[in-house]
């Protein structure tokens, strides 16, 4: 028996990764449901850097969605809902049951919502859904997101921002600021 020096293990606890997922060394993904709603057909739709822990994360990425995550990120049971793009930097921490979404998933106007309801129904014969607003979410390096927080479409979280547990973030957060509440307000600087 030979013992070969092994590079740190990478992969998904429940089987081989989908073909359009790329992960760096020592990156672990757990949970059987991780790719249950992984519907994207893009090449390299999900790219995760090295030394990341993706513990119980939902990668709910629709047809044309793309998600990139940097190195040394630590996500616990986060829900990533992506129709367009989530761009996440290095050393980002996301707490239990936090949600990050780049779309509202349905149109705002009542008339268009009726069209959408029909398009989503079992009676729809392949008719397209109406256009839905999507705006990329950008999370810069060193951001901390607490449990039960929600980050909505088009938001940019500046480097080192601290998002308290349960916050609902609808607007950009400047680098180094601490936010809290629904809607999230700046309550101070990160010390």
């Amino acid at each position, binding site marked *: 028996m030979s013992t070969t020096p092994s590079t*740190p293990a990478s992969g998904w606890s429940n089987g081989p990764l989908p073909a359009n997922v790329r992960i760096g060394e*020592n990156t672990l993904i757990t949970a059987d449901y991780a790719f249950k709603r992984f519907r994207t057909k893009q090449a390299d739709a999900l790219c995760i850097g090295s030394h990341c822990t993706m513990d119980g994360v939902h990668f709910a990425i629709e047809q044309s969605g793309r998600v990139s995550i940097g190195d*040394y990120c630590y996500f616990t049971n986060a829900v990533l809902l992506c129709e367009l793009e989530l761009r996440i930097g290095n*050393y980002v921490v996301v707490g239990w049951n936090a949600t990050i979404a780049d779309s509202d998933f349905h149109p705002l106007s009542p008339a268009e919502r009726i069209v959408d309801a029909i398009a989503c129904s079992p009676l729809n014969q392949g008719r397209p859904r109406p256009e839905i607003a999507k705006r990329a979410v950008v999370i810069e390096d060193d951001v*901390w997101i607490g*449990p*039960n927080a929600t980050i909505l479409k088009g938001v940019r979280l500046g480097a080192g921002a601290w998002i*308290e*547990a349960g*916050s609902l973030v609808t607007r950009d957060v400047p680098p180094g600021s601490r936010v809290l509440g629904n809607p999230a307000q700046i309550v101070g600087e990160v010390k």
Partner: protein
Amino acid sequence: MNPDRTLPWDWYPGRVPDNVAVDPEAYLETTYSFHLFRSAAADAVRIGRGASIYLGVMFDVGPKGRVSVGEFTLINGARIICDAEVSFGDYCLISWNTVFMDTCRLPTSASLRRTELASTASREPRRLESTTIARPIRIERNVWIGFDACILPGVTVGEGSVVGARSVVVEDVPPFSVAVGNPARIIRKLDPLKTENA
């Protein structure tokens, strides 16, 4: 509980840790609730008579953490992130998807956080070991906490108070108050002696 500390009705093939004291007249739905439990403290968890701990509860308790659950307290689903102490008094009602965190587990300084994340990545299993000061959470007797609420480090919720659904509690709630919102504010006081169906 069986003599080997498994539960006869459990769907998860686990055991109740040795330093968890469950009253014979308490109900614990599943040992999956201890999947992230790693406290080495004596009497790390105490679950009182008539208390019930349902499916959605996770004791994410660090090496020195301690949790106590009083008599007749019902916890439907709670993520208890505890490195110091989280205590629930008697007759509490705790709804689903609630978060009780006495620590953020990571330093607020980005550079210190980087160091900690780098060492976590080489740890097996990959758990954050608290490097920040934890501040105990105290939920006094007869408190009702609505679903999706978060209770942040250092908070005390006073006797008889109610915390509304989805509230985020960042500072103490005095006894017999109703606190709602994110961040939570006191919107009314309760009369400890009044009954609705007298």
